């Protein structure tokens, strides 16, 4: 076998050393009736050439964004991934290493995470960031539990304008933590602040807001923070990290915990997984953080060095009292996002955000002028994504787009579509997209 070095001769010699007669004997501690002796009903072995062809064929069946411009978003975005990311992630010293439990020979990963924490801290203007969560959705759930712990309160308010997928995860998680969820309604594409004010009470641990929200619209975050804090609730925000190249960062207006999806920052869309959970908070909550964190220290010779720290929060030490059960996180994608941010830098990330904004607005402008089409939330301010009302079934429109080699928007309803536009979409692609929409008598 290509991945198993032991030859028949090796096996024989090793069995002799162990004092066994056969490979079967190795499994003698398994009760007879619990052993499996048949052949599993799984596919047959493929040689490498056949495997390579098979996998290439499967890949070829998918409408990826290299071949087909896409207008899908809804949490995962086709932002440009610079070649530095692949070059760094392709270094086997990074991708074939384990969690850096032994800092003396893991400074590469440790420093990269420390830098990641700094970058995320700067981007969000938050005091501390952890080494990553599974994704933005579970991070939000962890943040809600954290807020409940910190405040001793048992209810959270979440805006209807938060991604439905995130809300679903939140519901699933919080049910088991006995935290109640109340939804604050959507009003014209953003959270209803009147409703929020009415709902907020001294039993509320936190207000959860996505900004820009699921529909791409900005929320009145400063007002939300003011209202929440007035009621003694924390604010948990899920921002689009790309938007923060332009917008005021959560730390600037008092957000307590940030739990965001980081895929946009140099991670492949990869059919939606893995994703990258970004998680940051105020320094006073540091010891209640879920997951890993890396800190700076010195070695015995006084050299700067990095190490996983605040370990007593974690499951391997604190067990059932840990701040979270998370163990393996998404270190390699955290690295990807750090390489991405280092590559984009101050000006590059701003350009990405600006281009996405401009192109999205150009698309929205053109679409809204097509008879039968209109913006769902004409009075909202959106960033790179917007909802439209369509005169025909979204599915029908998307089929027409597909026949032109375009992957259309996300179906918000039968006749409502969410359209995302990144810096990768050219005006020519947008025009083709618009032209298909306009062309037909729907």
């Amino acid at each position, binding site marked *: 076998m290509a991945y198993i070095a032991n030859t028949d001769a090796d096996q024989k010699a090793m069995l002799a050393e162990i004092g066994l007669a056969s490979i079967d004997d190795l499994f003698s501690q398994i009760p007879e009736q619990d052993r499996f002796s048949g052949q599993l009903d799984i596919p047959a072995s493929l040689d490498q050439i056949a495997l390579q062809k098979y996998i290439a064929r499967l890949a070829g069946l998918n409408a990826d964004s290299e071949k087909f411009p896409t207008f899908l978003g809804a949490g995962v975005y086709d932002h440009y991934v610079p070649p*530095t990311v692949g070059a760094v992630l392709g270094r086997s010293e*990074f991708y074939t290493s384990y969690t850096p439990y032994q800092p003396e020979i893991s400074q590469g990963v440790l420093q990269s995470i420390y830098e990641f924490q700094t970058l995320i801290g700067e981007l969000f203007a938050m005091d501390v960031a952890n080494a990553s969560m599974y994704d933005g959705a579970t991070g939000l759930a962890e943040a809600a539990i954290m807020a409940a712990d910190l405040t001793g309160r048992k209810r959270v308010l979440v805006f209807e304008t938060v991604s439905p997928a995130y809300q679903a995860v939140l519901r699933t998680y919080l049910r088991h933590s006995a935290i109640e969820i109340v939804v604050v309604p959507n009003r014209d594409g953003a959270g209803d602040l009147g409703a929020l004010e009415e709902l907020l009470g001294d039993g509320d641990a936190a207000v959860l807001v996505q900004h820009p929200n699921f529909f791409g619209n900005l929320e009145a975050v400063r007002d939300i923070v003011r209202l929440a804090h007035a009621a003694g609730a924390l604010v948990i925000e899920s921002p689009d990290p790309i938007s923060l190249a332009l*917008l005021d960062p959560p730390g600037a207006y008092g957000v307590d915990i940030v739990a965001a999806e980081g895929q946009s920052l140099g991670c*492949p*869309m990869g059919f939606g997984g893995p994703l990258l959970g970004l998680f940051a908070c105020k320094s006073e909550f540091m010891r209640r953080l879920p997951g890993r964190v890396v*800190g700076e220290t010195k070695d015995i010779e006084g050299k700067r060095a990095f190490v996983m720290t605040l370990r007593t929060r974690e499951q391997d030490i604190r067990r059932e009292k840990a701040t979270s059960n998370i163990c393996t996180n998404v270190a390699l994608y955290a690295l990807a996002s*750090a390489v991405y941010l280092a590559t984009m830098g101050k000006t590059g990330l701003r350009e990405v955000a600006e281009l996405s904004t401009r192109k999205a607005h150009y698309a929205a402008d053109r679409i809204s002028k097509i008879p039968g089409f209109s913006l769902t939330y004409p009075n909202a301010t959106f960033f790179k994504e917007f909802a439209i009302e369509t005169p025909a079934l979204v599915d029908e429109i998307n089929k027409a787009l597909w026949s032109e080699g375009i992957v259309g928007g996300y179906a918000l309803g039968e006749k409502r579509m969410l359209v995302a536009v990144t810096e990768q979409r050219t005006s020519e692609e947008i025009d083709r997209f618009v032209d298909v929409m306009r062309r037909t008598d729907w």
Partner: protein
Amino acid sequence: MSKQLGEPLLFELSRPGRKAVELPVSDVPDAPLADLLAAADFRDDLPLPELAEPDVIRHYTHLSQRNYSIDSGFYPLGSCTMKYNPKINEEAARLPGFARLHPATPPRLAQGAMRVLYDMQHILAEIGGMDACSLQPAAGAHGELLGLMLIKAYHEDHGNGAIKDTILTPDAAHGTNPASAARCGYRTAAVKSHSRGRVDIDHLRSLLNERVAGIMLTNPNTLGLFEDNIDQIAELVHGVGGLLYCDGANMNALVGRARPGDMGFDVMHFNLHKTFSTPHGGGGPGSGPVAVKKALIPYLPSGLVAKTADGAYTFEKPGPLSIGSVAAGFGSFMVILRAYVYILTYGREKISRIAENAVLNANYLRMRLGKDLDVAYNELCMHECIFTAKRQQKAYGVKAYDIAKRLMDYGYHPPTIYFPLIVHEALMIEPTETESRETLDAFVEAMQAILTEARETPELLSAAPVTTPVRRLDEATAARHPCLRWSCDVSDGANDA
């Protein structure tokens, strides 16, 4: 290569005005951003570093040179299954047809990816001896959480939600087990191990009652031993209406040779990043699919793929009893893809060779190294073996920690130490099947040399490592005065006094 200087931080390398990327200029009509983003507050400063591409690449190349990895050598971290990560898997994951595929792509335009998910659901269920599988969890602990939610949903659905509030975990269990149980709202109780390193049946009996919702077992357990009373345990736990959860982190010992589903387990998770060779990436991403018996299928989360009559793959609508979803997507697709490629390489004909050689290698190490270092439970082991340096600690003041640190000077990644918690001065060694006999022999020789040093020159061990990019760290100060980011003026106050 020759310089052992520290690598500056990205931020220290930054210089105003540098760029590492050439982005397009806008090709759509200009408009003031303030008009487009009418209601927005704009930020003043974006404090990101500024570097040219060569600087970025050199920085990360230098960091990589300060990191051990499987590709650099033996990495016998027990419980972590640090096996070789085949390169063909990485080639598959680089294909744009997968890497650049949006998850909301209409299924009819993503049939290749859907097929991967569909096949893996079935393959994993079959390997586990289970009836269905959700690929949604992002890691092992995430799978545990889902598994426990399914158990809870089952009990609730059967009217026992209120009574059944306890999950049992052995004292040797991985920390995620009790932590996941707590996250799922359960209280936990620890089952003792008996002198042969398995669940103490008498103690288990004493803990069993109607409040027990289930038991989480790692099998083989974290001592590398098969729970040979598993049939009896299953009977006992099922007897009080509890369910059996299998932490599949140690599936590398069993693949094709035994199936949790056949031993009475009702639900289990896999760690694709352990058993199925996907890279650990310095701490993730992983993938922790959960497979279940029929009785638990109604509660599975969203994201299951089904095959229609005409052979197309679609996402199933979750039923009314579904627990909902534990992640935004349908799973760590890119990890699942690698595991798929890996499994197809072995196929049904050869897949059991994984377990066979993993167990062979572990026992070979046990025999060879066991002559000089005590084996905690000296009998045939499964895929890993736990040694103890208790004797060395007593005799020479040399701890497992010191041995681990000294191994680095010999060019090895140390084993897992001080886990499981019930073994004193534990060194938990898992070689995996991808290591050659020569590598094991060389490792044994290094260990022998270190054990000789422990006797004769123990100061070498307490000073170790000396050849690494940095030496032993001041971890206490790091935790007491945490500095979690560059130019950190942050602290939690509590400990600054």
